[in-house]
C-alpha cells in the first residue's frame, strides 16, 4: 500500500510528545514518518519497528569477500605457477590474509549498499514535509494522509504538544 504523499507535519520539542503523537496516529491507522535528531529507542518502540535487513547484506558481502579472496589468490597463482622460496603454489596460510581482508572489505561495502538500498539513500528529492530544526533539536511526525483528513491529524498533533503544525498539499 502506497502512503499518500500529502499529509500533516507536527514539530515537537519533546520526545514524549512525539511518541504520543506517533501512537495516536497509529491508532487512527495513519502511516507516519518520524524525524528525529538522534536515534531514540522510544520512537522505535512507538513505531513497533521490525529488524533491519541490512545484516543480510553484510553477511552475503562478507562471504562473497572470503570466496573472492580465495579465488583471486588461488586462481592467479595457478594462472602462471612460479615457485618462490620452495613454497607451494597454493600457499593457503598466506592466502588467508587476502581472504580476511576481502571479507572485511566486501562486508563493509555490502553493508553500505544495504544501508543505501534500505534507507533509500541518496535521496535528494525527499518525499514529505521536512523542517531544518529536525537535525538540531526537534522531533517531527509526518502523518501521511489525504488532504481531506488533514483536520484529524492536525488535532492529534496539536493535542500531543506540537509547537508547529505544517501541512503538505503537494500531489
Amino acid at each position, binding site marked *: 500500500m502506497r502512503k499518500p504523499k500529502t499529509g500533516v507535519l507536527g514539530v515537537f520539542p519533546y*520526545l514524549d510528545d512525539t511518541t504520543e503523537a506517533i501512537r495516536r496516529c497509529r491508532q487512527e491507522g495513519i502511516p507516519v514518518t518520524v524525524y528525529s535528531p*538522534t536515534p531514540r529507542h522510544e*520512537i522505535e518502540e512507538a513505531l513497533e519497528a521490525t529488524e533491519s535487513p541490512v545484516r543480510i547484506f553484510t553477511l552475503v558481502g562478507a562471504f562473497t569477500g572470503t570466496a573472492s579472496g580465495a579465488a583471486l589468490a588461488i586462481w592467479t*597463482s595457478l594462472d602462471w605457477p612460479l615457485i618462490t622460496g620452495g613454497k607451494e603454489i597454493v600457499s593457503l596460510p598466506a592466502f588467508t590474509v*587476502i581472504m580476511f581482508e576481502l571479507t572485511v572489505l566486501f562486508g563493509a561495502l555490502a553493508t553500505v549498499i544495504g544501508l543505501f538500498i534500505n534507507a533509500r539513500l541518496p535521496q535528494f528529492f525527499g518525499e514529505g514535509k521536512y523542517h531544518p530544526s529536525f537535525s538540531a533539536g526537534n522531533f517531527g511526525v509526518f502523518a501521511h494522509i489525504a488532504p481531506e483528513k488533514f483536520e484529524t491529524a492536525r488535532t492529534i498533533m496539536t493535542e500531543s504538544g506540537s509547537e508547529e503544525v505544517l501541512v503538505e498539499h503537494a500531489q
Partner: protein
Amino acid sequence: MASTSDTLVHPDVRGYADVNRDAMRLLTRPGPGYLALLGMSVSLVGLAAFCWMWQLAYGMGMSGLNNPVGWGTYITTFVFWVGIGHAGTLISAILFLFRAAWRQSIYRFAEAMTVFAVLTAGLFPIIHIGRPWLFYYLLPYPNQRQIWPNFRSPLLWDVFAVTTYLTVSSVFFFIGLIPDIAAARDAAVVPWRKKAYSVLSLGWRGTDREWKHFTRAYLFLAALATPLVLSVHSVVSWDFAVSIVPGWHTTIFAPYFVAGAILSGVAMVITIVVPVRKIFHLEAYLTPMHFDRLAKLLLLTSTIVGYAYGMEYFMAWYSGELYERDVFLDRVSGDYWWAGWSMITFNGIVPHLLWFRRVRENLNYFFIISIIVNIGMWYERFVIIVPSLAHSYMPWQMVNYHMSWVEAGILMGSFGWFFMWFLLFLRFLPGLSIAEIKEVLPPPMRGTRETRLHAQQVPERQEIVEQPAPATAHLKRAQGE
C-alpha cells in the same frame, strides 16, 4: 550535581540544540592562527613534494639507505602512521561495541585522524619503492603479460590490508558523518556550503526508516572494523615477522605491534585533542573524564608494549639464538643505542607517570607525555627496522644507515600532509559527532506531563530537563532568518 570528572558532557550543555550550536561553531570563519597552521602544513607538503621529485629524478640513492639497510625512514614512517591510524577505529568501533559512552564526543576527531593517518601512511610504500612509476605491478589487475602479483608476499598482504583499512575506515567515517552533515546543511548559511553539505548528506533527513537501517549498518560496520583494526597492524607486523631477519622474526610481533599502534594512536589523539579543546573551547564536551579514560588506555597499552620489549630480550637470551642475541644487544649497546634507549624510555617508562593523579589531571603534562610517546613510537619502528638490518646475519655486511635530507624532508612533509587534512576537516566537517552526543544527553521531555510511556526517571539530571532550550529559536538565529 555529580562531580565533573565523571560526566560525559558538561552540564552547561543543556539540550540538543546546544550541541548543534557548539559543533557548528567549529565550522565558522577561521582565525589567523588556523591559517598560519594550515599554511605551515601546506609548506611542509610542498617541501616533501620537492624532496620526492628530487628522489624520483636521481634515484633512491638520495635516501640514506644502503645495501644491508634496505628500509629506513620511509618504512619507519609508514608503520608509524599506520599505527597512528589505529586509535581512531579503536575508539569509534571497538568502544562503540563495548558501549563505552565516553567515546561519543571524541571519536570523530580520532576517526578523522585515522583516515588521514592511513592516507599519509599509504603514500610511503610508493615513495619508498625504487620504481614508483611501476607501482601498479602490485595490483592484481588483468594484463596482457598474464602475470599476477605474488600473493605469498607480505607486501601484497600489506597492499590489501592498508587499502582495505583505508576504504573501510573512510566508509565508516563517512557513514557516521551523514547525519551530522545533514545538520550542518540545515544550519548552513553560506550558499556553496549549503549546496556541498546537501550533496554530502545524501539527502539525509533523520526519518525513522533512515535511523533504523543506519543504526544497524553502523553496528555492523563497527563489528567489521574491529577485527580489521586488529588485523591491519598484525599484517604490517608480518612484513617483519615472516622474514628471517633476526630481530624481526618473532611471533610476538602481531600483538606487540597492535598494542604499540594503539599506544601511539591514543597518544596522537591526545596530542590533537588537547589543543583543539583549548582553541575551540570544547571543554564542555571533552571533560576530564575523557582524559582520564585516555590516560588509562595509554597506561594499559604502554604496559603491554613494555612487556613486549622485555619479552623480546628474554627470548633473545633464553633461546640462545646467536643472531637474535647479537641484534638485541646491539640495539641497546651498538651504534643505535640512543634510539634503543629512547624507545624503551619513551614508551615503556614515561607513560607510567600517568599513575599519578596529579600528572594525569594536568593537561599540560599529559600533552607533553603524549608527544614523548609519539616520538618514542617512531623510534620503536626505527629501532626494529634499521639496527636489525644493519646487524643481520653476515658479519661482512654491517653498514650503518643515516637519514638523508631528502628523507627528513619527506618525514616532515608527512606531518604537514596529515595536519593539512586534519585542519581542513576541522573547518569543513563537523568535528563533534552531533547525533551521537545527543544519544548520551537526556532526551527532552515535557517533564510534568502525564504520559502513557513508562516513567522517565532521570533524578540526577532533573534540573537539565526542567529547563528546555529554545531549540527552534536558536536554529532560526543560526539560519539568519
